């Protein structure tokens, strides 16, 4: 029993330590951001890596999430005889929840793991140590562009996901089930407000910051072994997913 208590205490301290270190890491990045925004080239490369390369998976998933919404929404709404609200239902669920959250989960899986593995491998192969020897700050040179690239890419991916999802919902609702095209869009327009779009994009930005930070932190601080790199990528996905869902609750409660 005492050993269990000790383990619990150790676990708690480790968690607190990790949280504190991640916060410090994030603040360091924040402090370095203004100066490195001038060096556009590496950031563009990372927007390409995290954003453009994630586009196909985001669009495919967006289409299918939207189509499922079309199916489920149609089934649910016909029970109340109000299938003309399908557009509203699809738009609001995509904008407020599914768009940002699913994009963040996919982003963590596609871009976050790539970032963590890349940085972890750089650590394991002593590239980061070599940079330090050459008096090149690896935080500024390697970590920050990756973080900023992710932060820029994430809201754009979210918006793309939502837009494609709406077309998916429209495809199923209007083309397959014959919901009236006019009422699909007009009901959506009359009940979706600018605040809903803003909520979705704010969530996208916040999740982008969180997932990118977790990915670069885990990668940069990976143990310099093959196992360490593997563990860093796993941790990236797990922590990103948990943090995204917790943040989602908090943000929703704040903005509702």
């Amino acid at each position, binding site marked *: 029993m005492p050993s269990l208590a000790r383990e619990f205490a150790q676990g708690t301290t480790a968690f607190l330590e990790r949280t504190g270190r991640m916060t410090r890491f994030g603040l360091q990045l924040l402090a370095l951001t203004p100066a490195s925004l001038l060096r556009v080239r590496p950031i563009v490369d990372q927007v390409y890596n995290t954003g453009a390369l994630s586009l196909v998976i985001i669009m495919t998933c967006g289409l299918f999430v939207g189509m499922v919404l079309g199916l489920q929404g149609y089934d649910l709404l016909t029970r109340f005889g109000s299938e003309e609200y399908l557009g509203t239902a699809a738009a609001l669920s995509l904008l407020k929840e599914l768009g940002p959250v699913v994009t963040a989960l996919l982003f963590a899986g596609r871009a976050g793991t790539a970032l963590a593995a890349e940085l972890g491998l750089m650590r394991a192969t002593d590239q980061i140590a070599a940079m330090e020897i050459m008096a090149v700050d690896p935080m500024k040179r390697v970590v920050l562009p990756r973080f900023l690239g992710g932060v820029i890419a994430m809201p754009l991916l979210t*918006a793309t996901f939502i837009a494609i999802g709406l077309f998916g919902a429209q495809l199923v609702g209007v083309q397959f089930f014959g919901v009236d095209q006019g009422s699909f869009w007009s009901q959506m327009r009359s009940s979706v407000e600018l605040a809903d779009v803003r909520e979705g994009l704010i969530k996208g930005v916040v999740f982008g910051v969180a997932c990118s930070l977790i990915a670069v932190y885990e990668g940069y601080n990976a143990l310099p072994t093959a196992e360490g790199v593997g563990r860093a990528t796993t941790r990236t996905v797990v922590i990103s997913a948990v943090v995204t869902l917790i943040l989602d609750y908090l943000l929703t409660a704040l903005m509702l």
Partner: protein
Amino acid sequence: MRPSRTIDISTGLFVLLGFAAILFLVTQITNREFTLNSTSYRLRADFENIGGLKTGAPVSMAGVTIGRVEDVRYDMKLLKAVVTLRIDGRYDEIPDDSDASIYTAGLLGGQYVGLSPGGSEAYFKDGDRIGFVQDAVVLESLISKYLFSKAGEEKPAAAATAPAQE
């Protein structure tokens, strides 16, 4: 690393697509705010019951949105709901005996104010009060009215059959 030209082009495409998506979300799926130009004017209407009418609800004439509900408040002296309507300046020739009613859009939709034109030669001016109003229809009162009228119908019928049984 691939040649940087390819990266630039795909990054550019990605960013453009992202912004196009944002633009689509902002302009296409939200209610495009009915923009009132500076020449808009206000009308007032006092209702006994406004149902679920809210600020920002459309004011329409023959189905065309010509303004918005600007303010809804309860007047303690009149004991009525005072609704301020803001009408677009383009529609400045509404006969001053037009009447205002509160309708519901669809079965579950939001409520709006509908104006039906009267026959007067004079037009509404800024700050005028709409004289003829019709309150919102409250579903419960309709149902109870219907039930009471049913009950009223059944009584005489019962009275008519009662003597026959005796």
